Each structure stands twice: as structure tokens, then as C-alpha cells.
């Protein structure tokens, strides 16, 4: 649950975007779950699992503030105090269905791991990944290896110009998995695809369900993003 992991690589993969791999043996990790990572700040930083290979976990993170800057400065061999895996991930049992993955910016990382797992299970997926511009795009080839992949950029510098909602409108699928900024999630949650699962972000305290920092309104009361989510059936939450 809480352990010190060793950093095995930490490199820039796009503008202000880093990929970090850590060694963390003996943990079963579902796609869509996250780790709560200690920096010198008081509160931990939640990061989704972007991939798992053997006992190596990959995080992909955008450098936006003090905590992520500190992570970006870490060197191979340094250790990191992490809590996790936390939360509930995407439902993998989608046999016979067609799954569309819709990711925006820093919401893309968890979709890579879930796509890999679905691919291993023989489930067909199509990915729509939105970025602000070409310099922000990462993991495009890795995604293409696993199936059809549509890239959009807001400024049109790569792939289709505009937002992910445009290609989404023409895609046929039974299930939608999505992660990204709130505005995007709102839009995709309204899509006519029958089953829609979205992964939500919120500022967190404990990360384990005890402090009520991360709640989100739900049709019946509320849910806690950290322990009830971060992945929810879109019907379960009010964005």
C-alpha cells in the first residue's frame, strides 16, 4: 500500500511532459487506478498508472507546479514514497464489445494502460486523443500499435484540428472510456454511446476516502473520487 519505489527512468516525452518508470514489485495494478506520491509538499500528488510492464510502473505527468517540478528533477536510482494503487479502474470485461477511448491531454496516460490490457484480452478499441498542439503529443506510435488512433490538436498543428468530440461523433462503439479535462468529460458523457465510463480528477487530501476533499455530486448524494472512483459510470456522477 505504501512503499518506497526506485526510479528506473525519468525523461521528457513532450512539451512539459515527463515519463517516469519506477520499480515496484509484487503489486497487482488495475488500469485506471492511481498512486498518491509524496514530494516535499505536505499533500501527496495523485498520478494515474500509464502502463505496467513486469514490475515496472509508468507514470506520465505534466509539469505544472511545485510537486511535478520536483518529480521532474528526480534522478535514476532515487526513491519515491508512493501510496497505491488506489481507487477503482475501468471495467475490463467488455468481450464482444467495441470500446472507444477518449483522452484529453494529461488524461491520455491511463488510457494507454487500459488499451493494452483490452488488447491482450482481444477486445477491439479505437482511441481518440486530443492535445493542444503538436508539441504536446506523446505516445502516438505506442497507441497506433494497439489499434486505430485518431489524434486531434486544438491548433490543428497535428492530426485533425479541433476537439475530440468531432471524431467521436462519427465513431460507432458500445462502450466509452474517457479521461481528461472536465469540459471534455462533460461533452463525452453526453455522447449517445450506450455505456460511458469516465475518470475524474479532483484536488485530494487523503486519497483513501477518509477526508471528503474529493467529493463529486451524484444523483444520490455524492461520491468520493479517490475511493469510489476515479472511474465512474457517467450516470453515477453529476459533473
Amino acid at each position, binding site marked *: *500500500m*505504501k512503499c518506497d519505489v526506485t526510479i528506473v527512468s525519468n525523461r521528457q516525452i513532450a512539451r512539459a511532459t515527463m515519463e517516469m518508470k519506477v520499480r515496484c514489485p509484487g503489486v497487482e495494478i488495475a488500469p485506471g487506478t492511481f498512486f498518491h506520491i*509524496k514530494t516535499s*509538499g*505536505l*499533500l*501527496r500528488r495523485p498520478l494515474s498508472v500509464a502502463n505496467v510492464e513486469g514490475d515496472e510502473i509508468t507514470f506520465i505527468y505534466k509539469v505544472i507546479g511545485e510537486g511535478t517540478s520536483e518529480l521532474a528533477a528526480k534522478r535514476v536510482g532515487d526513491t519515491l514514497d508512493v*501510496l497505491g494503487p488506489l481507487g477503482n479502474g475501468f471495467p475490463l470485461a467488455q468481450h464482444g464489445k467495441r470500446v472507444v477511448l477518449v483522452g484529453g491531454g494529461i488524461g491520455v496516460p491511463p488510457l494507454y494502460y487500459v488499451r493494452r490490457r483490452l488488447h491482450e484480452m482481444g477486445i477491439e478499441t479505437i482511441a481518440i486523443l486530443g492535445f493542444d498542439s503538436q508539441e504536446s503529443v506523446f505516445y502516438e506510435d505506442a497507441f497506433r500499435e494497439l489499434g486505430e488512433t485518431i489524434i486531434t490538436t486544438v491548433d490543428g498543428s497535428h492530426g485533425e484540428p479541433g476537439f475530440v468530440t468531432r471524431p467521436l461523433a462519427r465513431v460507432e462503439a458500445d462502450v466509452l472510456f474517457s479521461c481528461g479535462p472536465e469540459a471534455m468529460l462533460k461533452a463525452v458523457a453526453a455522447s449517445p454511446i450506450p455505456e460511458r465510463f469516465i475518470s475524474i480528477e*479532483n*484536488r*485530494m*487530501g*487523503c*486519497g*483513501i*476516502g*477518509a*477526508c*471528503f*476533499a*474529493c*467529493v*463529486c*455530486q451524484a444523483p444520490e*448524494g*455524492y461520491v468520493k473520487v479517490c*475511493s469510489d472512483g476515479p472511474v465512474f459510470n457517467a450516470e453515477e456522477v453529476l459533473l
Partner: protein
Amino acid sequence: MRLNVELPGLHLKNPIIPASGCFGFGEEFAKLYDLSILGGIMIKAATEESRFGNPTPRVAETAQGMLNAIGLQNPGVDAIIEEKLPFLSTFDTEIIANVAGSTPGEYVEVARRISADPTIKAVELNISCPNVKCGGMQFGTDPVMAAELTRLVKAASSKPVYVKLSPNVTSITDMARAVEAAGADGLTMINTLVGMRIDIETGRPILANRIGGLSGPAIKPVAVRMVYEVAQAVNIPIIAMGGVRTVDDVLEFIYAGASAVAVGTANFENPYVCQEIIDALPARLDALGIEHILDVRGKAYAQLVSRP
């Protein structure tokens, strides 16, 4: 036997208690370690009806501190009694109910109902929550109102009443003396300092509630000073809190005059922190040549003080 602390209504096997609002109703932490190792547990605030609390974001980080504006989210006193206390009753530790409200009547009703449950050993009267519009802090900044509320809740409660003091006052000793005179069995202090953070990109407060309560190591010097002043001004015991995260922080509060210590924000940084502090206490007492932890209670202001 060198860590036990006897307080009104509470037989603490050690002076370490998770603070209210930072430990939920224990369920999440019970998956991490056996809650029976704890001296006690201060559960999340209870109000008469269930409350959703404030909109999010509800937390923001500051330099060695955090702001929160949860807004007393809780399922309501009856749901707590029915759904949360049975689970907590399975542990060998003292459960302390945190009681909140918007009106004196609500405080009284919540205290009456929850104190009647045999799992509850004491009531913590939360007159100091800065994150709710009415109730909460207004009772905690006026000695006359605080005393009146204490009297009412004391009359309604079947268990000892500890009053939780707000640090957002000119004279914390005036507040402490007022609630002592009104019959409080003990004090818990401090609640959070009122603070704010503004987002530099937008120029707007980060918390949806705009202001929030500051907790964590940043406030420890203020908490220690207040405990030090109040311990010399009253004759009822103090359960201290504010920035505790190590065994030395615990000792600092005991030296300042506290009889036990609650751990809040540190549980977020390290969910095992209470267990680690409890494990580390005996060796630290040995190293400092302290026989029983309360032998040094109040040492910061007096050479020799007897156990409370």
C-alpha cells in the same frame, strides 16, 4: 503502562488519537492497521441532518500546511449511530464524538443522541469550525456564547464534554476559562486558523468556499503557544493538536501542558503515522530518560507537575 492516560471518560492506552475530520469513521484506516492500537479516535463531525458540505475544490496546499473547507460533510447523527458506530465498537479504543451544528438546539440534540450510544466515551464540542456559514466559529470566538453552549451541551450529554477551541481569537485563555467555568470536562485545541490561497493564473481564491482552515506543521508553533498559555490558566485537561507528525511533536505538546495529542493532517501525508508514532514512543522516552510520558507534562512552564 508508561503511555496510559486517564482523562474524564477516557482510558487511553496511549495519548495518540487521530483528529476529527482526518480519519473519517475509521473504516479506511482499519484496512491499513489495527485501530485497537490507538489511544482513541475522534470521529468526523456529526450534525443533526446529513450534510453535503461545500463545493469543490475543498483543499489547497500551502507551505507546510493545507487549507480545507469540507464544510462538515457527514451522514447525520442517526446514520452515524446506526451505520458507523457498530463498526467502531469492534475495536478496543476510546471513541470520541465530534458534535457540530448551526444552532444551540442542533448542538444539544446531536450531543444528546450520540452521547447516549455506549460506543461513545466522550463528546468533543466543535465550536470552532471555520468552514460553515452559520454556527461553528461564531460560538468559538465569543466567550459568552461559548460558555452558554457548553452549559447546554453539558446538560444534554451523558458523557464528558471536551470543548474544541478556535485559535482565531484575541485571547484563547479567555475562551478556555469561560468554557471551564461553564462545566467543560476538558479542552481540545486547536482547530484550524482561517486562511486563503489565490490562484495566480485566475486571480480567484482556490477554494470554492474562498476561505478555509489552515492545518499542518505550519500552525504548530501557534498551537504549542496556545496550549502552553491555556494549560497554565485552567485546571481541566487538554488534548492538543496542530501539526503533529512525529514523536517529538507529541512531546512538545506534552511539555507545553497537554495530556494527550491528536493527529490530523499528518494522516494524509502518511496514513500509517499514528501507528508509527505509537511504535516510536517508548524508545524516545528511554532516550530522554522519561519514565511515564505524563511525568513531563507542563515541563515548559514548571519544574515539577503531577499527573493530571
